[in-house]
């Protein structure tokens, strides 16, 4: 009995120290990435290339999802608002939901599953096939040459994708609310313009998407770089990227929202 208790405590201690060590590695990893970012900016072509893979190739899923989320918001919002006779506020509801919350959060989740998983799998496989070791043996630092350009590409892409998601969502809400259901077009747009504040709503939404971009790209890169160099290791790392990034986005969103919108 006592033996089992000792075993459990030891196991708990081992797991805790493991988590702390990995967290330490992850922090050291991101610090190194930031320190070795000079090459990426001197040779901006490296970032442009990654922007294409992480940003441009995520466009389709982001735009289509944005459109549908906006259309659903239009339908649901109209249903509720018309009960109170305030369907003219549909534009405000759609825009605020998207700009403050759904844009950054849903775009972040989609970005994690589309671009984040791809980054992890690519770097994990580069490690498993000794491409990173080969680079090191050629006296080229993989953090500077492989990791840093991908980090900046993710960091730049994410806010842009979130903005496009929101824009597309608003268009979806307009399609359903105004074109399909027949809400007055003038009040849809004018109420939206009056109610959406640049500093309070749009800037806060952009800040969120920047934070999510940082978190998702960091997690994806670290998981890939840290993956055991086997098929099982890479698949596990890819899964961890999606799960950890999604939880990080939702947790950070709550934290940021509680700081940004304290009853104002």
């Amino acid at each position: 009995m006592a033996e089992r208790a000792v075993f459990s405590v030891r196991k708990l201690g081992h797991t805790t120290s493991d988590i702390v060590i990995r967290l330490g590695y992850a922090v050291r990893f991101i610090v190194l990435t930031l320190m070795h970012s000079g090459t990426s900016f001197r040779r901006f072509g490296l970032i442009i290339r990654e922007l294409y893979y992480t940003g441009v190739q995520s466009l389709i899923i982001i735009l289509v999802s944005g459109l549908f989320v906006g259309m659903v918001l239009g339908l649901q919002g109209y249903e509720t608002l018309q009960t109170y006779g305030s369907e003219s506020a549909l534009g405000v509801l759609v825009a605020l939901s998207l700009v403050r919350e759904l844009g950054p959060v849903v775009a972040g989740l989609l970005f994690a599953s589309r671009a984040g998983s791809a980054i992890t799998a690519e770097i994990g496989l580069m490690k498993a096939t000794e491409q990173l070791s080969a680079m090191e043996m050629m006296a080229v630092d993989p953090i500077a040459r492989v990791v840093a350009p991908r980090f900046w590409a993710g960091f730049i892409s994410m806010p842009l994708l979130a903005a496009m998601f929101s824009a597309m969502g608003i268009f979806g809400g307009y399609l359903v609310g105004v074109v399909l259901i027949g809400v007055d077009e003038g009040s849809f747009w004018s109420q939206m313009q009056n109610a959406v504040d640049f500093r309070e709503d749009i800037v806060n939404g952009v800040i969120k998407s920047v934070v999510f971009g940082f978190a998702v790209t960091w997690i994806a890169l670290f998981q890939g770089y840290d993956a055991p160099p086997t098929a099982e290791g890479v698949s596990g790392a890819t899964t961890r990227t999606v799960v950890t990034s999604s939880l990080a986005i939702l947790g950070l969103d709550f934290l940021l929202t509680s700081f940004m919108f304290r009853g104002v």
Partner: protein
Amino acid sequence: MAADNLIEIKDVDYWYDKRRAILSGIDMVIPRGKVVAIMGISGSGKTTLLRLIGGVMKARKGEVRVDGQLVSDLDTAGIYKLRSRMGMLFQFGALFTDMTVFDNVAFQMREHTNLPERMIRDLVYLKLNAVGLRGAHRLMPSELSGGMARRVALARAIALDPMLMLYDEPFTGLDPISLGVIRNLIRSLNDALGATSIVVTHDVQEALELVDYVYYMSDGKVVAHGTPQEMLANDEPLVHQFVYGEADGPVPFQYPSRNYGEDLKLGARHG
């Protein structure tokens, strides 16, 4: 004379866990201009030794000197400077899969030199021509056979005319033709570049035909060394078993296990 040796390894130990040494008491010299094989069964510490020479890991005890420099004394910049004068061929080539054959070979030139693109093009063609694959410069690594990939990796490794070439199991998984091509290339490139080569391998016939000198390792120690002829005539049981590929000997066929009869529970049935 020390200057004649490109690499000098003195009394080197390496371990991950102190109770289980990977390398112990390794002494080795690699003369300039020679092709030297480090042979031994899997797990004998060959690749670890290669990593110590490349500065990927540092010896826990003893000295590893490359071109007179003590590898363990070098900082990251020093290690990178040393590595820029080395070329390494990895077991399965390790080509960058997102780049064409041309870009793979040009990689180091673009990273380490300011040569104009026209000159890089000429140099890449030169290197690819040396391995017989100038015509394949547009292909992606996924379009190459195993042997071709290994040759492209070789062209990439010699891109900056290294003083030292490290080969990690260069013959593994190749068909006989590719194997012959790689073997001839190792020798001809070594002599043409005036380089020194270390070939880590367990392919006995290929290695003995190719190299000038052999170190045979077992269980983290050098147990024999000499010219290929001396190795063929060596009567040390470990070397004899390895060179002649005998299934049983000092290296047992069976993984350590309990008595066979006990595993089959023969005693229980009869007793």
